[in-house]
């Protein structure tokens, strides 16, 4: 029987765990290690920042010791030019063609800028990158990114760090239904049920950072969201019953005793 838990390929990486972890917001590298282990995550995202003489580079060592795949992002970029440059730096630092492409439009809402994102996607796809495009929940933009060469499309559920869940489930369903590349729900997840919903809507995976790294008990939340992600996927494959307007008895309607 197809359990739906078979591995999926994202860019050059094949993973079984459908929960991708973002490391942003974690109080320490030790917490990052604990949440990766609790979630059984196989793919984690990192940012690229200026080398600081006083900081250690031990995040790299921690991630390597856990044998996880590292997905560099272009967080903090507000133009295609910056994002392309940062992607190239990520490729050089981590020897991977995979990049989570973020091109944001404003500091306040951290929403993706679809125009710059499209330009950067085209440029990077031409340059041999496997682009994981972080985008709005707009089906037109999602499909345009796929045509531009994105190998994974990552629509948001809600703005980064808000924990508002999936604000427009119907759009996510539309994005999934038309896509021929994997769809990863990214940003907005606040708790386990949001991750389950993403998978029930047909997403191939979810990416979660703040909901875990900023939880009161990150390790416990990592496990919770990992279980919910798997549950949502099983539920999707299990096939939900159609919604009805009126009740339908589950017990037999024949053979009911008569009491006077």
């Amino acid at each position: 029987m197809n359990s739906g838990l078979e591995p999926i390929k994202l860019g050059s990486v094949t993973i079984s765990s459908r929960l991708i972890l973002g490391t942003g917001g974690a109080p320490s590298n030790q917490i990052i290690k604990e949440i990766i282990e609790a979630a059984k995550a196989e793919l984690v995202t990192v940012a690229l920042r200026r080398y600081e003489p006083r900081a250690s580079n031990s995040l790299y060592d921690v991630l390597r010791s856990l044998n996880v795949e590292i997905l560099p992002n272009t967080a903090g970029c507000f133009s295609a030019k910056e994002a392309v440059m940062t992607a190239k730096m990520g490729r050089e630092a981590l020897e991977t063609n995979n990049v989570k492409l973020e091109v944001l439009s404003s500091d306040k809402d951290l929403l993706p800028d679809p125009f710059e994102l499209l330009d950067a996607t085209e440029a990077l796809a031409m340059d041999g990158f496997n682009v994981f495009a972080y985008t709005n929940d707009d089906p037109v933009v999602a499909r345009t990114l796929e045509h531009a060469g994105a190998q994974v499309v990552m629509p948001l559920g809600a703005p980064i760090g808000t924990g508002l869940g999936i604000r427009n489930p119907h759009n996510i369903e539309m994005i999934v239904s038309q896509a021929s590349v994997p769809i990863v729900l990214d940003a907005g997840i606040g708790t386990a049920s949001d991750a389950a919903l993403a998978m029930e809507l047909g997403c191939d995976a979810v990416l979660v950072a703040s909901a875990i790294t900023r939880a009161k008990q990150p390790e416990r939340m990592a496990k919770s969201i990992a279980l919910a992600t798997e549950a949502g996927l099983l539920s999707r494959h299990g096939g939900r019953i159609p919604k009805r307007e009126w009740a339908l008895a589950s017990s037999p309607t024949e053979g009911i005793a008569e009491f006077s």
Partner: protein
Amino acid sequence: MMEITLNGSVQQVRESTTVAELVEALGLPMRGIALAVNSEVVPKSSWKERSLSPQDKVELLTIAQGG
């Protein structure tokens, strides 16, 4: 000596210092880092040959927490 900018701060380095020498002086491991000179990525394979010039702007990045 000559002046370069490393991650936004002005530094004095020996003339014709190579990228490899610059990184080595910082005591950094080679993995998990990337370097650009004047907005051009310099691949690790050419760090030993690539000499810096006065006023070069060097960006040296490492991986950091990120979502």
